C-alpha cells in the first residue's frame, strides 16, 4: 500500500488516539521524568520526548502528542507544531527500517539519484512511503555529513558508505528478510526504528563501543601524513599535542609515531 501522501499534516487516525495501556503509560512516565531531569526547563525535553513516543508507537501518534503535552504542560497544538517541523518525526506509521538515500547535490551526482530510482522501483514505493509488509520506509534524505563516502545511504540513521544500486537493493532485501545487517560505520547491526528512537531520546543501548572509530576516507589524511612523517609542531608541553617530533626543522623527523609500512 504505497500510499501515504506526505501532505505535511499530522495524520491522526482513530486508533492513534486509543489510550496507552497502564504498563506502557507507567513506563513512559518514568522515562519522561528522566528526560525532563536533564534540563533546567522542562519544555526542553520536548524533542527527546517525541523521539520517546516514536519508540513506543513507531511514529508520533495522537496519543503521543497528548502524552507530551500532558507531561510538559503544553497544549496539543504546541506539541503538534513542533512535531510537524522536524523531518525525523513521522506523521504516519513508519516501517521498521527507514532507508534514506542521500539525494542532495553531491551524493545525487555521485550516484544517489540512480540508487534512489533503482531501489524505489525494486520496492515499488516512492519517497516517504512504506512497503506493504511494514518493513521499509524509503526516503530521500538531505546531506548526512559523510560526503567523502558518497553515495551514502542511511538505514535507521546508521551509515552505509560508498553505495551502489546493487548494494542498497541488497541492503533492503536483507532488512526485509529479517537478517542482521551491519552498517559500514555504526553499531554491529542496524536496530529497529523503535529501538533507535529510544536511543535518540537519550537512553543508551550499550552499543557505543561497537563498530569502527573511523572509516578509510576519514583516515586518509592521517595515513598520508604518517607516510611522509608530517606532524604538528611541538608545543609548550614538550610532548606536544601534535607530536613528539622536532618542530623547527624543515624536514620533520619521522618519529616512533610513523606507523607507515
Amino acid at each position, binding site marked *: 500500500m504505497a500510499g501515504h501522501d506526505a501532505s505535511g499534516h499530522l495524520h491522526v487516525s482513530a486508533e492513534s488516539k486509543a489510550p496507552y495501556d497502564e504498563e506502557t503509560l507507567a513506563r513512559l512516565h518514568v522515562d519522561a521524568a528522566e528526560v525532563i531531569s536533564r534540563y533546567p526547563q522542562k519544555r526542553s525535553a520536548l524533542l527527546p520526548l517525541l523521539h520517546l513516543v516514536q519508540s513506543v508507537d513507531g511514529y508520533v501518534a495522537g496519543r503521543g502528542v497528548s502524552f507530551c503535552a500532558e507531561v510538559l504542560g503544553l497544549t496539543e497544538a504546541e506539541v503538534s507544531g513542533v512535531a510537524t517541523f522536524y523531518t525525523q518525526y513521522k506523521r504516519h506509521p513508519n516501517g521498521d527500517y527507514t532507508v534514506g538515500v542521500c539525494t542532495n547535490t553531491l551524493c545525487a*551526482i555521485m550516484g544517489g539519484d540512480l540508487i534512489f530510482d533503482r531501489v524505489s522501483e525494486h520496492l515499488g514505493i516512492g519517497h516517504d512511503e512504506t512497503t506493504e509488509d511494514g518493513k521499509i520506509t524509503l526516503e530521500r534524505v*538531505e546531506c548526512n555529513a559523510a*560526503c567523502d563516502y558518497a553515495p551514502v545511504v542511511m538505514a535507521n540513521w546508521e*551509515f552505509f558508505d560508498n553505495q551502489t544500486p546493487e548494494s542498497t537493493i541488497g541492503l533492503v532485501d536483507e532488512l526485509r528478510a529479517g537478517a542482521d545487517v551491519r552498517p559500514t560505520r555504526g553499531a554491529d547491526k542496524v536496530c529497529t526504528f523503535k529501538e533507535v528512537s529510544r536511543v535518540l531520546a537519550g537512553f543508551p543501548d550499550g552499543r557505543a563501543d561497537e563498530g569502527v*572509530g573511523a572509516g*578509510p576516507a576519514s583516515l586518509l*589524511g592521517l595515513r598520508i601524513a604518517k607516510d611522509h612523517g608530517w*606532524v*604538528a609542531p611541538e608545543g609548550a608541553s614538550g610532548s606536544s599535542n601534535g607530536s613528539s617530533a622536532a618542530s623547527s626543522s624543515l624536514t620533520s623527523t619521522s618519529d616512533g609515531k610513523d606507523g607507515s609500512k
Partner: protein
Amino acid sequence: MTDTLTPILTKFWDDPQSWTLATYERHDGYKALTRALTMEPQAIIDAVKDSSIRGRGGAGFPTGMKWSFMSPPDGGPRYLVVNADESEPGTCKDIPLMMANPHSLIEGVAISSYAIGCEHAFIYLRGEVVHVYRRLLRAVEEARAAGYLGDNVGGKGVKVDITVHAGAGAYICGEETALLDSLEGRRGQPRLKPPFPGAAGLYARPTSVNNVESIASVPGIILEGSDWFKGMGTEKSTGFGIFSLSGHVTNPGQFEAPLGITMRELIELAGGMRGGRKLKFWTPGGSSTPIFTEEHLDVPLDFDSVAAAGSMLGTRALQVFDETVSVVRAVARWTDFYAHESCGKCTPCREGTWWLRQIMNRIEAGEGTQDDIDKLVDICDNILGRSFCALGDAATSPITSAVKYFREEFEAGMTTPAHELFPPEKSVLFELPAPTTSKESSGMVSA
C-alpha cells in the same frame, strides 16, 4: 615551516577503540583540563583570544572574542552550547571527529565551560547520526565517572555537566538562534538579533554557541600554548582545521592541515581528479559558499584569501565536480535543498526559495524562458541581505556564482535538458551495467 598536514584532532583516529577514555588519556587526554583548572577563568579566555582562533563552524568569528562579549556574571546561570548540527551540504568533519574522538570535544567543553562560568553545557547533535550520539553519551558517562565532569571537577570544586541533546532533522537548527529555540523545545526558527546569545541566549541567559571543532581545539591551545597554535596557519587565520574533500577526486577524505593550504595541494593529496578528468567547479566551504573554478586552485584556503576571491572559507567542505557534471543540475538540487529547509519565518526566504526552485527546475528540464536568468538574479538580489537569517543569503550563493561562471549553461537550459548536455551516468562513482536507455532520474519532487 610547518608540515603540509598536521594531524592533531585526527591524530589517533586509527587507534583501535579511538573513542574511549583510555585511548584519549594515552594521548595526553584531559591534561589540558588539569592545567586549565590551575588557571583563572579569565586567563583561559585570554589564551584562547591570544591564539586568534576563528570559529570553525563557518562564520569565522573569533572564539575568544565571542566569549568575552558575553554579559558579565550576575549570579545566574550561563551556558555553553555546542553546535553539533553539522548539516551544511558537503560538510563532514564534525561527525567523524565525534565518532572517532569524542573526548576531545568533551574536554574542550569542560575547559570552555569553566572559562565562561557555565555549569551546565549542552551539545546539540543533529538527530540523524545515531552512532555518534551513542559515542557522545558514552564519552560523557566515562568523563563523569573519571571526575572530569560533575560537581567537583578535578577535585577543585568546579561544577560542569553536559547534556547531549539529539535534534530531529532540520538544517536551520545549525543557525545558532534557531538551535537555541529548538533546544528550548520549539520549532527551530531564528531569533531577531540583537539581543545576541551572549546577552540573552538559552533561556534568555548569557550563552556562547560554538562549533564542535572550535571547542575541540581549545585543549590544544591550553596545553601547547597560543604561540603553538599561531605557529600554524596564516596571520589572520591561525591554526589548523579539518579539510573535507568529496566528489570527483580519486580518493576523497579528511585532511587536517594548517589554514592556508591550497585546493591544488589538497587535490594532489587526494590522488588527483578521478580518471584524469578535468575539474569543472568546486565549493570551498559547502553549498552556501559561492562556487569556485579551476582559476581558484591556488587561493590559500584561509578566511581572508577566500573572501577576497569572492567566496567564503565556510566549513572547508570541498566538494569537487568534474567536467561531466551539469552545473545547472547541481545548483538546481541545492536550490531544492534550501527551499525544503527554509523555516518559513520570513517572506524573502520562504517565497524566494520557492520561486528559485521553480525556475531552476525548469532550466534543468530545458524549459527555461528567455528572461529566467535575469529573474533568478533579480530574486537572489531580493533575498540577499533581506532575509531574516543566513539561510536565505546562502540559497543565493550557488545561483549567482554559477551564473557568473557558467552563464552559457543556464542559457542552454532554455532549449536543452541538462541530462542531455551532461548524461548523469557519466558522473556516477560506480560501474554501470550494460548501457541502458538513458533515463534521467527524477528531481526531488516531494520532500
